């Protein structure tokens, strides 16, 4: 759509600007403040420059939790995007079952995040949970509170359970929007199912897939509540992701300087990666 230039449009945007600035800029400046100061309690602060940033960037603990975080997001994207796409392709396009499918699939998305954690907690308990008991009965030695591998398996499965539906719904919306003529033309040409997918469906799904990847990346990179409730970052620190580590530093130990520096670095990583996704998305949209 060709838009007209109108500077008065700022008045329409002003309320949003005020609200978001209040919530974003003031806290962000507080964090920046902490990150460049040293404190000994009693509200006495002294300037410490980039000390905390250097310390954080060089600390093994930060590297470890960043590494875990990147690995987690990579696994999540590698599983959820293809799986969601496959399920969306297999879904019926019309008929009474569509609504039923959509409502049931959307259900996990509307459960408070700590309830998701508790739910998987009781579901995966080795003695009394359906999944834990079932896996042990099948001969696996499964105990997510003791074995790091099992904890990772449970968390990944929980996240797949929680968020794959988002990818399914996005892809489904994209598929429904493809006009029927495309399929008919393909039929006349005698195109195989793979060719239909590769040359009709996939290009048309590019935009929704970008949104899906962007949302899934951001949310998996920020995961906190579910993991905190399920494993608390354990066993040991095997599932301590960035947010959990940050919370331990900020509210557990009250080390405001390192926590501030860590927050800024964390935020910048997300910002940079999201900017890449966003530019790609906007370029697609402009075409």
């Amino acid at each position, binding site marked *: 759509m060709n838009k007209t230039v109108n500077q008065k449009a700022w008045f329409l945007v002003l309320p*949003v600007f005020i609200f978001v600035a209040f919530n974003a800029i003031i806290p962000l400046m507080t964090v920046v403040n902490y990150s460049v100061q040293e404190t000994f309690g009693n509200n006495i602060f002294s300037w410490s420059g980039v000390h905390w940033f250097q310390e954080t960037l060089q600390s093994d603990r930060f590297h470890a939790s960043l590494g875990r975080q990147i690995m987690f997001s990579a696994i999540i994207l590698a599983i959820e995007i293809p799986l969601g796409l496959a399920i969306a392709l297999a879904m019926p396009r019309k008929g009474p079952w569509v609504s039923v499918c959509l409502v049931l699939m959307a259900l996990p998305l509307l459960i408070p995040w700590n309830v998701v954690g508790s739910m998987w907690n009781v579901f995966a308990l080795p003695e009394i949970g359906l999944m834990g008991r079932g896996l042990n009965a099948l001969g696996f030695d499964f105990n997510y509170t003791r074995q790091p591998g099992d904890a990772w398996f449970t968390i990944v499965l929980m996240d797949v359970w929680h968020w794959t539906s988002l990818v399914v719904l996005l892809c489904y919306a994209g598929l429904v929007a493809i006009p029927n003529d495309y399929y008919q033309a393909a039929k006349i040409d005698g195109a195989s199912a793979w060719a239909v997918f590769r040359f009709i469906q996939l290009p048309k799904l590019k935009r929704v897939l970008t949104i899906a990847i962007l949302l899934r990346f951001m949310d998996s990179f920020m995961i906190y509540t579910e993991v905190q409730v399920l494993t608390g970052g354990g066993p040991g620190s095997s599932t301590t992701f960035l947010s959990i580590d940050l919370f331990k530093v900020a509210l557990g130990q009250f080390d405001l300087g390192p926590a501030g520096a860590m927050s800024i670095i964390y935020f910048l990583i997300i910002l940079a990666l999201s900017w890449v996704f966003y530019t790609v998305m906007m370029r697609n949209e402009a075409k």
Partner: protein
Amino acid sequence: MRKRSIVPILYILFLMLPIYWLVTMSFKTTNEILGGFTAWPQNFTLDSYRKIFTDPTWYMGYVASIEYVVINTIVSVAVALPAAYAFSRYRFLGDKHLFFWLLTNRMAPAAVFALPFYQLYSAVGLFDTPWAVALSHTLFNIPLAVWILEGFMSGVPKELDETAYVDGYSFPRFFINIFIPTIAAGIGVACFFCFMFSWVEMLLAKTLTAVAAKPIAALMTKTASTSGYELGLLAAAGTLTLIPGAVVIYFVRNYIAKGFALGRV
């Protein structure tokens, strides 16, 4: 066709299993839960639910949750409406940068903001009120609402606006009487998403409340751990938090797919 439908069916079964487990657990007695493995409640009991509905510290948690979610949804959508219109119709100084800046707030990890939010809302005297949680959730809900509404509004041809202005409508009259009814579906979807993200977010909701405005889901973990694993009660409280979500999904079921694509399909 028949063979293909096995995939969604299996997927939905997988989704329902943990939910089934939570719901059955809520009807079991604590002894039965801890005593061993039973796939179905042997001594069916409603005690856990009775306790929740008779104890004000429990059911007021629901009231608090609903309160801030509703305030947040109304504020977010009302503020986002004119802004989304501006983004979809006009170019102005810094519009693209502003749009991206708004989106970055959707990307801000709540853990980064938890402590500063606590201090900010304590400083302005809103700590432990539903308003604190509602306002803090606007951080990510306003950008989201702007994004969704902008998508829907861009689907409305500009001729609608131009015809109305030629007919002598002023901007506010046009916006309220003509434009808002036209994009009613988009507003519904935006409300749904604001509701959803405010309802499921717990980190800020927990940090910004102490006693009076404690949301139900946060209350749940707390009470369950202090009174020694009352898993039945925990499961019942969890089950009750599923209901508002299910009700809301039912209302938007026809728009849900388009909504998740943020109105941009």
